[in-house]
């Protein structure tokens, strides 16, 4: 019933536009950015950076940012789908965390319900140990995990999130049971860092940015990063693959459009995001935030999202988080 009513309403709107002689399709002149997380977090910062870059480069100056936090985006996504259907000026921020959260929560609404527009950024994960830890290299840590996987405790973000996913992928690559990983979940980077600085856990996993300052100050030791190539700030820290663990993971963030928009409207949004991402202001935003620009748009991005859903579902199943 609801979907039919939507069709009727959209049909009416179209005919109203036609009657008024307005062009039915035109590049959006304002954007509504929907952030399925609380202000202050990574997705919110992505939204603010998009707004700042577009304003600065004079692409779009009219913005409305809306937050609907909860459960790694699982609360916001259904709201976005139902309230923004067919709206060509609405975009939602999302990323790897949302993929994991939707799978772990058996969410009835998946990312297939929205229209993928572009991947914008990625952030490598970093594996660290306390400064006084006996583990000097990734190989030391791997050897300890192989000896008794339950003895090596990892502090990181919430279960099923990016950090936990990486721990599971590492265990699997080493031929260990991902469910046996002693993963200690903390709500956010601060408490996890405190556990590491206090030498309460063997190792920690988080985004590079989260641990960067502690590593630079010598309070934590970086053993490896999860990206395909080394991270600019830590040139002497090997990638997991270089250290002999065949795993690659990037905490990517991107934008999605509402369901039910036309192909032309989708193309307009892709063009808009590409224009921003190739402009000088966005490059500046990437620099200050320490993000890698990983622009990928349109069909390629759609395929990427589909592949990530399959891959993450498999990891979460291995971890016993997907029923």
């Amino acid at each position: 019933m609801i979907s039919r009513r939507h069709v009727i309403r959209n049909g009416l709107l179209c005919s109203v536009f036609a009657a008024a002689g307005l062009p039915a399709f035109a590049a959006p002149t304002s954007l509504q950015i929907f952030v399925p997380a609380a202000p202050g977090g990574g997705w919110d910062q992505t939204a603010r950076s998009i707004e700042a870059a577009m304003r600065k480069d004079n692409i779009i100056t009219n913005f409305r940012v809306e937050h609907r936090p909860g459960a790694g985006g699982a609360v916001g996504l259904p709201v976005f789908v139902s309230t923004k259907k067919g709206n060509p000026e609405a975009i939602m921020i999302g990323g790897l965390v949302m993929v994991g959260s939707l799978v772990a929560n058996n969410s009835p609404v998946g990312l297939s319900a929205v229209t993928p527009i572009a991947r914008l950024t990625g952030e490598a994960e970093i594996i660290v140990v306390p400064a006084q830890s006996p583990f000097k290299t990734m190989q030391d840590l791997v050897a300890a995990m192989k000896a008794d996987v339950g003895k090596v405790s990892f502090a990181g973000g919430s279960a099923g999130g990016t950090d936990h996913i990486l721990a599971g992928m590492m265990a699997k690559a080493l031929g260990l049971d991902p469910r046996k990983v002693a993963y200690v979940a903390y709500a956010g980077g601060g408490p996890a860092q405190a556990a590491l600085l206090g030498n309460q856990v063997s190792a920690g996993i988080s985004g590079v940015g989260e641990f960067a300052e502690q590593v630079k100050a010598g309070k934590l030791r970086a053993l490896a990063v999860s990206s395909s190539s080394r991270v600019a700030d830590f040139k002497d820290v090997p990638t997991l693959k270089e250290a002999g663990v065949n795993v690659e993971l990037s905490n990517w963030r991107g934008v999605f459009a509402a369901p039910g928009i036309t192909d032309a409207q989708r193309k307009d949004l892709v063009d808009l995001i590409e224009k921003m991402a190739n402009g000088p202001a966005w490059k500046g935003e990437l620099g200050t935030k320490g993000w890698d620009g990983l622009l990928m748009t349109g069909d390629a991005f759609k395929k990427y999202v589909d592949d990530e859903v399959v891959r993450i579902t498999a990891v979460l199943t291995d971890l016993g988080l997907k029923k």
Partner: protein
Amino acid sequence: MDTLAHLANGFALALTPINLLWCLVGVTVGTAIGVLPGLGPALTIALLLPLTYKVDATSAFILFAGIYYGAMYGGSTTSILLNTPGESATIVTSLEGNRMARSGRAGAALSTAAIGSFVAGTIGTIGLTFAAEPVVRFALKFGPAEYFSLMVLSFVTVSAVLGSSALRGLTALAVGIFLGMIGIDLQTGQPRFAFGVTELLDGINVLIVAVGLFAVGETLYLAAHGKRGPQEVLVVKDSIWMSAADWARSWKPWLRGSFLGFPIGAMPAGGAEVPTFLSYWMEKRFSKHKEEFGTVGAIEGVAGPEAANNASAAGVLVPMLALGLPTSATAAIMLSAFQSYGINPGPQLLDTQPALVWSLIASLYIGNVMLLVLNLPLVGLWVKILKVPEPLLYAGILVFATIGTYGISRSVVDLLLLYTMGVMGYLMRRFDFPTAPVIIGMILGPLAEQEFRRAMTISQGDLTIFFTRPLSLTLLVIAALAVAGPYLAKLVRKPAAG
């Protein structure tokens, strides 16, 4: 001496007219949002983040710190006057504070809260200035095992609010623990008791439960059992200020609350609520006026917890400024504000940005003075609210609680929860169940559970971890003594008397 020189520089920067103005704006906004249930300092600072594009770093952080301190002051006002806590750290304040207000002593309660907040805020800031290093080293010694033992100790405090029947009190505690478990479990990522309602996935906000149980429940009770006919207006007894006796009874709780709140606030998983519980329990044990607790309202029960929550606010800034660790939502957002200035908050913050950090600390001293000056004259104004006839006053409380709750998330589910809790609060009052244990269970239950499971993951299921670590064992022994102490004392005294 180095510290003093830095601090002097900090004052020089913080005392410029423009920064004083930002500080004043901060504490005023902070007081206002503290008064409103729902809107907290974290959300407010997040909404003000775009300011960082326009204002220089020092001014922005002076503003943010003012908001943070101000919210702690403001939260107590509505707790005392309307039984509607504005912040979760001021829930305990409403226990005695509102009873004092209803026995005509609102002025004294508000004054001891404001002056206690000032004393504790200043002690906390002094601690932040001179003792940040050792405090943070001590706080990092707390691992999951120690936190679990601290929570066990905190559960003892429930004995202070059990009321006449232990069975009813413990039932209320169990209800609270259950409410605290709703939502996604952090350690497994699985939803618990959410029944497919996505709004419940992130758990229930403790403030909604507190406002529902206390304020809405109270209103319903009054509507059902209130007197008909002409209303008697509450009389403000004596002077609206604190009497000499009030001062004598307040100063020790202020100090005890400060020394509980500061170190626990500095602990990465300590928080502001735990020290208020501990302080309340302690004051009830030490008070010479036990009969006033839970009846006409004891001033110690306001002075201690209020000092504890303000000292913990300073404590939270210790790991943030000393190590760059965001251990609360507010600190996390302040740290992300640092980043938008291109400042990387970390262990070297104090070395790389001394001017910023020290002017921030100096502004805390100034903010505290401003808050005292702002709040004390308001006491006279606030107590007039209680002269509003009861039906109108309670109608106002209902509107206020509803708007505040809706403001948290603009979610209808939250409003339904508020009123469900209100009905539950009414029924609990009707059948003589205490409501405070629900809140204690809801805050401590999930903390204790998570820390227990973390400790078990690290020790590979070995329970002795709680007894083999000295700090953890010490806390458990204190908890055991706190429970058994009164009984042991009786056993020892009885033979002597007989």
